[in-house]
C-alpha cells in the first residue's frame, strides 16, 4: 500500500542576503536564523516534508520561526532561494513548481492551490463585493461565464454561512470571522486539491474561532481536501492535524503524529512549547 504524496517539498530554503563561508554549506548549524558574521537571514532552511491526499498537516512554531515564509513560498508570494516542490496534480509530480514561469505558477496558484491568510486584507479586495472577490479567482482560472460564476460564488458563500443577502456587500463591512469565511470561500472557488491556511483563527474571539475551525473540519471531511494549517496555537493543531511539524529558527526540528508531538515531545524546544500550554 504505497501512497503517493500530493505535495512533496525537498530542501526548500529562503534566505535574505548572500551568505558567506561561515553560514553556507550543508552541515553548518546556526544558533539563530541569521549568520552572525554576514547577517544573512535564513527564514527557511532545508525544509522537506510530504503532504498526502485528504490529510491535514499542522505546522507550529514561535513567531519568526519561518512558518509564514514557508506558506508564502508555497503560494509563490515569495520567491524561494532554492528547493524542489512537486505537485501530483501538476505534470504528474515530475516538474519542480518553483522553477516554472510566472504564468505557470499563476495557473498552479489558481487551480491547484487555495490560500487563506491571517490578515484578510491580503487575501481579499476589501472594496469589491464578496461575490466579486470569489468570481475574481474564478476568472483568474479562465472562467468567463458570468451566470456560472455567480451561481458558484453564491453556493460557496452559502457553504461558509455568509447570509446571501449580504453577498453584494464588500468584506470591509464584515466582522473578522466573516472575512475569514469569505477568504475560505474564495480559496475553495476552483476546487483546489490543496488548501493553505496561515494562522486563520489568530485574533478572532473564541466562539468565532470555533466557527471557523468547524468550517475547516467540515470542508476537509466533505471535500477530502489536503490542508497545511499553520498556527502557534497548539489547541488548534491538536484539533485539526493528523501530523505536525515543529519549526524553530527556519528549520524543522521535529515532526510526527500530532498527539505524539504534543504528549511525547523529543526536542528541547518542543518540550518547552508543550509545557507552556495553559
Amino acid at each position, binding site marked *: 500500500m504505497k501512497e503517493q504524496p500530493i505535495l512533496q517539498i525537498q530542501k526548500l530554503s529562503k534566505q535574505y542576503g548572500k551568505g558567506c563561508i561561515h553560514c553556507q554549506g550543508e552541515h553548518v548549524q546556526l544558533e539563530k536564523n541569521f549568520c552572525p558574521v554576514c547577517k544573512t537571514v535564513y527564514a527557511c532552511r532545508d525544509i522537506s516534508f510530504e503532504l498526502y491526499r485528504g490529510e491535514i498537516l499542522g505546522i507550529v512554531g514561535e513567531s519568526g520561526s519561518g512558518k509564514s515564509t514557508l506558506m508564502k513560498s508555497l503560494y509563490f508570494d515569495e520567491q524561494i532561494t532554492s528547493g524542489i516542490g512537486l505537485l501530483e496534480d501538476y505534470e504528474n509530480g515530475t516538474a519542480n513548481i518553483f522553477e516554472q514561469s510566472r504564468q505557470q505558477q499563476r495557473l498552479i496558484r489558481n487551480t491547484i492551490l487555495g490560500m487563506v491568510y491571517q490578515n484578510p486584507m491580503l487575501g481579499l479586495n476589501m472594496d469589491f463585493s464578496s461575490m466579486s472577490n470569489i468570481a475574481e479567482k474564478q476568472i483568474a482560472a479562465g472562467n468567463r461565464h458570468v451566470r456560472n460564476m455567480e451561481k458558484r460564488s453564491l453556493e460557496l458563500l452559502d457553504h461558509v454561512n455568509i447570509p446571501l443577502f449580504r453577498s453584494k456587500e464588500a468584506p470591509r463591512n464584515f466582522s473578522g470571522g466573516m472575512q475569514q469565511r469569505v477568504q475560505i470561500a474564495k480559496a475553495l472557488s476552483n476546487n483546489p486539491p490543496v488548501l493553505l491556511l496561515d494562522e486563520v483563527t489568530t485574533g478572532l474571539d473564541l466562539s468565532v474561532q470555533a466557527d471557523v475551525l468547524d468550517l475547516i473540519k467540515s470542508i476537509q471531511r466533505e471535500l477530502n481536501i489536503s490542508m497545511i494549517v499553520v498556527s502557534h496555537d497548539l489547541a488548534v493543531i491538536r484539533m485539526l492535524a*493528523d*501530523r505536525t511539524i515543529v519549526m524553530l529558527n527556519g528549520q524543522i526540528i521535529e*515532526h510526527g503524529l500530532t*498527539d505524539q508531538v504534543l504528549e*511525547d515531545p523529543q*526536542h528541547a524546544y518542543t518540550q518547552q512549547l508543550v509545557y507552556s500550554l495553559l
Partner: protein
Amino acid sequence: MITVENLRKSFTIHHLNKALPALQGVSLHVPEGSFLGIVGKSGSGKSTILKSIYRTYEPQDGKILFQSEAFGTIDLVQATAREIVYLRKHEIGYVSQFLNVMPRTTALELVEQSLLDLGVSKEEATTKAQQALRHFDIDESLWNSYPNMFSGGEKLRLNIACAVVKEPRLLLLDEPTASLDHSSKLKVREAIEKLKANGTTLIGIFHDLEFMEGLCDNVFHMAKMQQKELV
C-alpha cells in the same frame, strides 16, 4: 495478533537534563481474539505500554509486531506516521480515562464522526451511533448536547461508545472504567464481551481486578514483567 518484544521507553526531560526510564524490556504476546489484562502499581508503566502500541509515545527500542489487515505484519515502532494514522482509523482503537471532545460537537455527532471517518454512509452512521449511545445508557435527551456539560461517568461511557462503534480489530483500554458506577461497569463489560465474541483482540488496564475476572485470557504483571495465562 500482536507481539511486543523487548520494548524500551524512557522520557528525556531536557530542562532537568535527565532521562526517566519507563519501560525496560517488556515482552508480551496477545493471540487474535483474546484479552490481555495489564496489572501493576500506578507509575509502573502500564499506560506507557498502551501508548507505545498506539504510538502516542515513541519507544526507543524493541518491536511491536501487529498483524494488520492492510499492511500484513507491521512493526508499529518503525511504522510511518501515515501508516499509524491509517491503522488508528481502521484497525486500532484506544479508550482512555479522558474524553477528547471537539468544540461544539454533540454527543451523537461525535460517535457518528468515528464511523464517517471509515467511509460509512451518514444514515448508517446515525443508526449505529444511536444504538451505541442507547447501549451505554446515555439519555436520549443528551444526544444533541455538547459533552463538555456531561458528568464524568457520561463522558467515559461516550468515550467507550466512540471507540467500540468502529469495531476495531485491536482495542486498547486504558482504565476506561476508573470512575464508573457498578451498573455502568457492567455495560462496559457487556460491550467488551460482545467485541470479544466478534473476534476483537483487547489489551486493557483495570484497577478493578474483580472487573477483569472471567474477562481476561492472560494477565501481564508489571512488577514481575511476566505474562501469565489464566485458566
